[in-house]
């Protein structure tokens, strides 16, 4: 592998880590904030806007904005069918964070689910990140 390819692979790996970490931190923070806010099922945007007065919800939204940008950057470098399973490790970390930080109970079945998802992540990581060249012209 030449140095240009190695550097490209490292950038893709770094982006993958940013996508996973920001997904976990953003969702845990937002979930914590939304539970302090209470139930909202409403068609009015104002009811959702009020939720952002909560600092945890606000912080969660900001970190999820970073997640969105890093996810788009990653999709510019890697296949969707690679990005999806690999970034699913966020579910495992979110469940663990829910357990250790928000004190949610994890049943035996959820522990099995966590192992199954982890196997999927490992399997996807063994494929090359990108299998296409250029853009999908037929869509443009």
């Amino acid at each position, binding site marked *: 592998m030449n140095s240009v390819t190695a550097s490209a692979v490292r950038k893709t790996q770094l982006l993958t880590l940013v996508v996973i970490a920001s997904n976990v931190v953003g969702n845990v923070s937002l979930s914590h904030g939304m539970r302090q806010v209470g139930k909202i099922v409403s068609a009015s945007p104002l009811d959702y806007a009020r939720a952002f007065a909560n600092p945890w919800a606000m912080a969660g939204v900001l970190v999820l904005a970073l997640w969105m940008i890093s996810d788009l950057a990653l999709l*510019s470098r890697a296949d969707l069918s690679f990005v999806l399973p690999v970034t699913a490790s966020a579910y495992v970390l979110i469940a663990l964070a*829910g357990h250790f930080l928000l004190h949610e109970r994890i049943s035996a*079945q959820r522990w099995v689910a966590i192992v199954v998802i982890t196997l999927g992540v490992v399997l996807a990581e063994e494929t090359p990140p990108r299998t296409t060249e250029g853009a999908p012209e037929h869509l443009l």
Partner: protein
Amino acid sequence: MRWILVGIIALCNTVGDVLNTAGMKRQGEAELDPRSVAHMVAGIFRNPLVLAGLGALAVAFIALLSLLSISNVSFAVPATAISYLLETLLAKYVLKEKVTWRRWGAASLVAFGVLMLSW
């Protein structure tokens, strides 16, 4: 109510991710220095595929907020399980990615694991 929200999230996530992938591939590989990131973000606002994709994801996000407020995080986030298989299918036939047995296996394991989380 929960399951209606789950359906909206799955559908909008799938459409959004496929449009975003196509749009970002057209924009070219992103670099990581601040100048390139700023350039990439500016490019997104002139990229109709990504704008449409983000619109679909915004709808999914509002549905997710509702779902998070009536159930806990371990239920709400994995509610998108179905979209994993649907997105892998569209990645193969619409985005023309080489979806090998490893990728199908990975998507299936993740989708199954995510469903188990919400049982």
